[in-house]
């Protein structure tokens, strides 16, 4: 017993716990709530509407003149009101459902989405020596050397939630939604996985944190403008990187069931798809899982192609201003660590706005078009792209 207890690295456990609480409860879940709000507001302004603008922080009750507004638009507490509404709604279970799987499905959508957050490097490192804590903390919950593989392995479990929801509901529309979802998600996982192989080949690395550090020093994959990024080989390699980025981002749309690939829950055909029979918090869990998957997917895209937490032109900025904006292992000041965390989430917010923007622009694909695109176009393109990258790496090797 003593030896088991002694084998635990207590500071590491406590640090991990703090990081988990911070990332999941203070960042991802509020971000999910506010991306729903962003979805509603952005869709509103795209369609020349106003959107939810009433639920403000009621400072007027405390005697202030005006409620808090950002950019002159109110409604900032709408996510809280939505959450409260979900809790207060009747949790109705139809009599014909398979109760066990019916209850299991929402959890199985939510849990994998949050579990993938474990390997997401959301910052470089935080130097807490001013607080008396020695070595700087790495801003990633689990610093695995198989980051992307772990993410794909876990996030592909998300399809079980959807399929079980469709099956257990014992109703035709959820069933069709579940069937569509399984076909779609399995098909697009292939191109999703193949499309990041060129990036991994260039990094020569499967650790997401080290990928970010490489891009911080040598330019983002899609913006090789500093460090070693200013070499011929990186410029030439932009071709396969752009291809793989396009394939990756479109597959990500399909993987997260977003328009134009939202066939599992298309309102016009399937009522609400796989979650038709769900209500109250169970429905909210599907909602949360979907948006959490979106955030994690954006996080992966950002880490692979947009430099993760790195500030653009970091080394240059450090030279010009005298402050340190780039990452230096074990020697990154506290403010830079915070800036890196902020940069990472700012990039994710940008991605989510793009997701929303695309959703309210494009119409939905037909199912056969979807399958054709996945199997006959993206699969081949991603596969050929791997060989193209290998060829280019052989012709113009990286330093």
């Amino acid at each position, binding site marked *: 017993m003593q030896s088991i207890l002694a084998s635990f690295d207590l500071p590491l456990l406590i640090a991990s716990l703090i990081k988990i609480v911070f990332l999941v409860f203070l960042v991802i879940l509020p971000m999910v709530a506010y991306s729903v709000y962003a979805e509603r507001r952005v869709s509103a302004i795209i369609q020349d509407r106003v959107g939810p603008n009433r639920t403000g922080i009621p400072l007027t009750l405390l005697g202030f003149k005006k409620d808090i507004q950002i950019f002159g638009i109110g409604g900032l507490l709408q996510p809280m009101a939505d959450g409260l509404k979900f809790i207060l709604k009747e949790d109705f279970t139809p009599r014909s459902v398979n109760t066990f799987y019916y209850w299991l499905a929402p959890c199985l959508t939510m849990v994998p989405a949050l579990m993938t957050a474990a390997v997401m490097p959301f910052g470089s490192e935080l130097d807490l020596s001013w607080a008396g804590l020695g070595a700087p903390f790495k801003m990633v919950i689990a610093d695995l050397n198989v980051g992307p593989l772990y993410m794909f392995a876990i996030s592909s479990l998300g399809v079980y939630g959807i399929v079980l929801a469709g099956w257990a509901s014992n109703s035709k529309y959820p069933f069709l939604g579940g069937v569509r979802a399984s076909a779609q998600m399995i098909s697009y996982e292939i191109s999703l996985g193949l499309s990041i192989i060129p990036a991994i080949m260039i990094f020569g690395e499967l650790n997401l944190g080290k990928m970010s550090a490489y891009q911080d020093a040598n330019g983002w994959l899609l913006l090789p403008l500093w460090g070693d990024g200013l070499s011929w080989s990186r410029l030439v390699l932009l071709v396969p990187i752009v291809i793989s980025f396009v394939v990756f981002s479109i597959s990500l749309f399909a993987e997260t069931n977003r328009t134009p690939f939202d066939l599992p829950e298309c309102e016009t055909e399937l009522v609400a798809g796989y979650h038709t029979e769900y209500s109250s918090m169970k429905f909210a869990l599907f909602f949360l899982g979907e948006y959490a998957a979106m955030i994690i997917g954006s996080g992966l895209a950002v880490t692979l192609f947009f430099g993760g937490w790195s500030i653009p032109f970091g080394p240059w900025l450090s030279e010009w201003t005298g402050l340190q904006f780039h990452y230096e292992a074990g020697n990154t000041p506290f403010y830079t660590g915070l800036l890196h965390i902020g940069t990472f989430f700012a990039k994710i917010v940008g991605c989510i706005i793009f997701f929303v923007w695309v959703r309210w622009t*494009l119409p939905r694909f037909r199912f056969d078009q979807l399958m054709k695109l996945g199997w006959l176009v993206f699969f081949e393109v991603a596969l050929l792209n791997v060989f193209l990258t290998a060829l280019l790496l052989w012709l113009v090797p990286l330093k």
Partner: protein
Amino acid sequence: MPTIVVQRPKLAWHEKIFLSGFLNGMRITLGHAIRTFKTLRGSKTVVTMQYPEQKWDESLPEHYRGAPTLVTDEHGRERCVSCQLCEFICPPKAIKIIPGEIPSDDPWAKVEKRPREFEIDMIRCIYCGMCEEVCPEQAIFLRKDYAITGTSRAEMVHDKEKLYEIGGVRTGLVNKWNDLK
């Protein structure tokens, strides 16, 4: 039968893979978003009316069908003679009338009847205007009040007093009960 061969348009490569269509669409939605966002920031919406602050009362049409009310004429006489036609025609049965007699010493004693009680249940009312249409005395009119609210069912029943209060005086109507000049 003459046939027309429709020539399919020749598409460029970027049109075939929907690239230009996609970019065009994104440009249009972004344009709308930015334009609407600017008007929102100025807190003046072009299309949407911010309801409780802005109201459409001025632009209501003459024929608007709001709350049904009872009216008095320029002599202060209540025009309703409690014939109960409106009560019988009312599709949701929202109107309840208890007729009363006009005492013989009243200057309008020849009208003989007026309502002792006249209640319209505004929870039931569907604002169809049939009561106004059927009234032979031009006594009931649909006014422009549309925000009828209350905190209880009892509050939503408009009694006679309330109906005359909303209805007010209406002039220029046919006055068949007046003395012959």
